[in-house]
C-alpha cells in the first residue's frame, strides 16, 4: 500500500525535507534580523503599506488590558472582523467574526461567540498565550475579508488563501488553501484545510491534499477541485515577489487572499513555510530551487522574475524544468 516511500524515490522527485529546509534554505537565506518583520503581523502590515502591497484594513490594535473595554464598545458597531495575535502562527488564536445576531457574534462556521468570550480571547492574546515562547503580545483587529465568490464556493465557511513560495524573489511554487469544517474557517493545512497545488504558469489547479492525503473533491462542498483556476494570476505572483524586496527574506511563504471587492490582498508572510505544498503540487521543490540558485544573473524587477518563473513552468505543469537534482549543490554565491 501507499504507507511508506523509499528515501531514494523522494530524492528522485526532488522532495525537500524538513531538515534540509532548515539548514540549507531558512538557515542560509533568511537573515534572523528580518524575522520580526514577518513574525509580527503588525510590522508586516506597515511594511506592506510602504511597498505598496495591499493588505486588509487595520481597524484597531489592542495593546493593553485596559483597552479591551474600549474595544468592546467600538466593536459593537462592526459586524465582520478578524482578531489575530500579532505574533501568532499556524492559525493559532485567530478569531474570525463574519456577522452578528443580537448581542452575539457569529463565526463563519455559524457558531456563536459572546462578548465575554471575545474579552477573554483578547486577554489571552495580550498575555502571550499564542505567541512564540509566551512573550506578551498585542491583538490586531482587521477588516473581514470576503472571499471572491469564484473561490469561496470551494471553501467551507472561511476565506481561502493562496500560498506562494518565494525563493530569492522568484515564485517557485503555489497552492490554494481551502477552509473546511475541520479547520474551523481557517485555511491552515495542519488544522485540516485542503491544499490545492497551482500551476505556476497559469494558476490552474493540479492536485489536492487534505491532512497530507490526496483528494479529488472538497470534503464539505463536494465540488471537484480540478476545475479551480485563479484569476489575476500574474498580478498575484508579482505581489508575492515584491515581498522579497520588502523583507529581504530569501526563502519565504507569502499568503494572499482574494477579496471580493478589493482584489488580491497580502494576509501574512512566513519565514518558515511548510513542506505540504510539495504534496499538493505532486512535485518536489528541489529542482525549482536549484534552478533559481543556478541563475547566472538574477532578474531585477518582480515582474521580470515572475515572467521567468512562469516561463519555466509553462511547457507543462511539471517535469520539464526538472534537471533532476544532481548530487549536492556547490555553493553559489548569491
Amino acid at each position, binding site marked *: 500500500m*501507499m*504507507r*511508506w*516511500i*523509499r*528515501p531514494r*524515490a*523522494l530524492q*528522485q*522527485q526532488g*522532495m525537500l*525535507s*524538513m*531538515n*534540509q529546509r532548515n*539548514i*540549507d534554505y531558512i538557515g*542560509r*537565506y533568511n537573515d534572523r534580523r528580518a524575522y520580526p518583520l514577518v513574525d509580527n503581523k503588525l510590522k508586516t502590515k506597515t511594511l506592506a503599506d510602504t511597498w505598496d502591497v495591499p493588505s486588509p484594513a487595520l481597524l484597531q490594535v489592542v495593546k493593553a*488590558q485596559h483597552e479591551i473595554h474600549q474595544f468592546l464598545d467600538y466593536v459593537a458597531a462592526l459586524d465582520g472582523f478578524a482578531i489575530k495575535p500579532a505574533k501568532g502562527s499556524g492559525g*493559532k488564536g485567530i478569531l474570525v467574526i463574519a456577522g452578528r445576531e443580537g448581542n452575539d457574534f457569529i463565526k463563519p462556521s455559524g457558531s456563536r461567540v459572546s462578548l*465575554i468570550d471575545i*474579552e*477573554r480571547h483578547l*486577554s*489571552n492574546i495580550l*498575555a*502571550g*498565550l499564542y505567541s512564540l515562547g509566551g512573550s506578551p503580545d498585542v491583538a490586531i483587529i482587521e477588516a473581514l475579508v470576503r472571499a471572491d465568490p469564484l473561490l469561496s464556493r470551494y471553501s467551507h465557511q472561511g476565506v481561502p488563501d493562496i500560498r506562494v513560495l518565494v525563493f530569492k524573489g522568484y515564485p517557485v511554487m503555489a497552492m490554494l488553501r481551502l477552509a473546511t469544517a475541520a479547520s474551523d474557517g481557517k485555511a491552515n493545512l*495542519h*488544522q485540516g484545510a485542503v491544499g490545492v497545488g497551482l500551476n505556476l504558469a497559469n494558476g490552474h489547479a493540479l*492536485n489536492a*491534499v487534505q491532512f*497530507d*492525503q*490526496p483528494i479529488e473533491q472538497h470534503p464539505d462542498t463536494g465540488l471537484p477541485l480540478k476545475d479551480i483556476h485563479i484569476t489575476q494570476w500574474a498580478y498575484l505572483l508579482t505581489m508575492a515577489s515584491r515581498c522579497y524586496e520588502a523583507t529581504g527574506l*530569501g526563502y519565504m511563504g507569502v499568503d494572499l487572499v482574494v477579496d471580493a471587492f478589493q482584489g488580491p490582498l497580502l494576509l501574512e508572510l512566513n519565514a518558515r513555510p511548510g513542506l505540504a505544498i*510539495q*504534496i499538493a503540487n*505532486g*512535485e*518536489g521543490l528541489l529542482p525549482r530551487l536549484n534552478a533559481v540558485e543556478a541563475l547566472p544573473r538574477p532578474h531585477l524587477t518582480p515582474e521580470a522574475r515572475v515572467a521567468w518563473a512562469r516561463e519555466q513552468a509553462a511547457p507543462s505543469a*511539471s*517535469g520539464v524544468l526538472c534537471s533532476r537534482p544532481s548530487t549536492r549543490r556547490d*555553493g*553559489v*554565491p*548569491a
Partner: protein
Amino acid sequence: MRQYSRTPFRIGIGLLILAGVSLATIRHLELGVPWWPGEQRPVWRVEARVDFQASGEPVSVRLNIPDQPPGFRILTEQATSPGYGFTLQEQQGERFAQWDIRQAEGPQTLFFKTRLLPEPQAAQDRESELPTASQVFLEEPSATAARALLTQAQAQSSGPASLARALIRQLTRATPDQNAQLLLDHAALAETLAQLLNHAGIPARLVDGLVLEDARRQQRLLPWLQIHDGNHWITFNPRTGEQGVPEQVLLWRQARGPVLEVVGGQDSQVRFSMLRQTLPATQVGQATATGSVMTALSLYQLPVEQQGMFRLLLLMPFGALVVCVLRILIGIRTAGTFMPVLIAVAFVQTSLLPGLAAFLSLITLGLLLRGYLSSLNLLLVSRISAMIVLVLFLTAALSLIGYHMGFSTGMTLTFFPMVILAWTIERMSILWDEEGPHEVFIQGGGSLLVAILAYLIMSAPLAEHLSFNFPELHLVVLGLILLLGQYTGYKLTELRRFAPMRRYST
C-alpha cells in the same frame, strides 16, 4: 548569502570526538578506571561538616572519628580547614580529628572527609580489658521505677542480651507503662536504656551511628546501644530492638565522651553528608590519590554534596542526544523541546513506573483543574501561577496517598519540575481546545516516549558509570549532537508523510 565550507567544521567535530576518546583512554590506562561498571566496588564517602561561631579567641576543635567501625574499612581520611592546624590523635583507644588556630572570629566551617569500604566482618572487637558497668545513681521516684522495670524485664529474660531486648520492648511500647513513662520523662530513650542496664550491672554504653543513604545531606548521628556480654560488645537499635549493626549503619563514635568539643566557639554543630561511589577494584587497592593530572580532573575530587548533583547533571547530555536523534532523525513531535529530558531526570529519581503513574495522574488532574480555572476568566500569568500552586498541592496529595499506601516514591515526587508541569498542562489544554484531543495525544505521547527512552538510557548503569568516571566522553556526545545538527536527509516520519508522492513518481 552566508555560505561556508563544511570541511573545517567536520574536522573540528572529528577532533572533538578524538579528544574525548583519547582522554578517556588515557584515564583508563593511567588510573585503571574500567570501561564497564561491573568491576566496581561501592565506597561510601562521608563528609562531616563542623560549624560554629568563633569568639575571637584561640580555637580548638576536637571531633571524634570512626575507629575500626564494624562492617567498614577506612580507606582515606582527609580534613579541609583553611588556616587551621590539623592533627589526627589517638587516645585511650579513641580517635580524634583535632583543629587548632591562634585566633578566629565569626562563622567557621571545618570538613572532615573519609572514604569507607563496606566489608562484612571487617572489624572485630578489640578489648584490652573487660569493661565494667558504670555506677548509676538514681533519685526517687526514678529509682523505684527502674527497679520495677528491671524486675519485670529480668523475669522475661535469660541473659544480658535478652534483658536488653526486654527493656527495649518495654520502653518502646506505643503506651509505655507508668514506670517507663516516668523514666522517659527524665531522659531520652537510649540514655534511659543505658542507665537501666548499667544499673542492672551490665556494662552498657551509647554509641553514635550514621545511617548511610546515597546522596543525603545534613544528616545527624543517631544513638545506638551497646552492651557487653562478657566477650563482645553487642549492638542494639534502641528504637526497634534490632540486634547487631545494620549494613547501612556506620558507627561513627564507639567511645565515651562527646562527638564534638569546641573550645573558643559557640553554637557548634556537626552534620554529615554522604555519597555512594563506585570505585574500580584496582583503585580501591591503591586507595590514596596519586598526584597525576588525570586524578586532578576526576570529579571524585569535588565535595560530596556537589558530586551528587553532578552525577545527575552529567546524565543530561545523554537526554539531549536522545531528543536530537528522535526529533532530527525520527521526527517525533514533542510538547516543548526539552521538557521530555526534565521529565526523564525526574524519572531517574522516582524510577520509571511510579514516576510514570505519578506524572500521568498529575497531568490528568491538572487538566481537570485547569478546565475549571479557564471558566474563571483569569489573566494568563495568574492562571499559570495558580496552576503551579495547584500542581504543588496535587504533588503533596499524591505523595501523602503514596506514603500511606506504603510507597516511598512520595518523597521523590518533588523532583518533578513544578513550573514545567504547570506549563505543560496549560499548553496541553490549549492544544486540546484548538486542535482537538488527537494532537494532544500525539504530542503528549511523543513527549512521553522521548522521556522514557531518555530515561532508559540515562538510568543504564553504563551511562552513569561512563558519564561520571569519564566526563571527557561528553565531548563525543557534543560532537554527535553537532553532527546531527548538520543532517539534511529525510526524517523517518517524512518517509511516511510523503508516501502520497508515490503516485506522482515516474
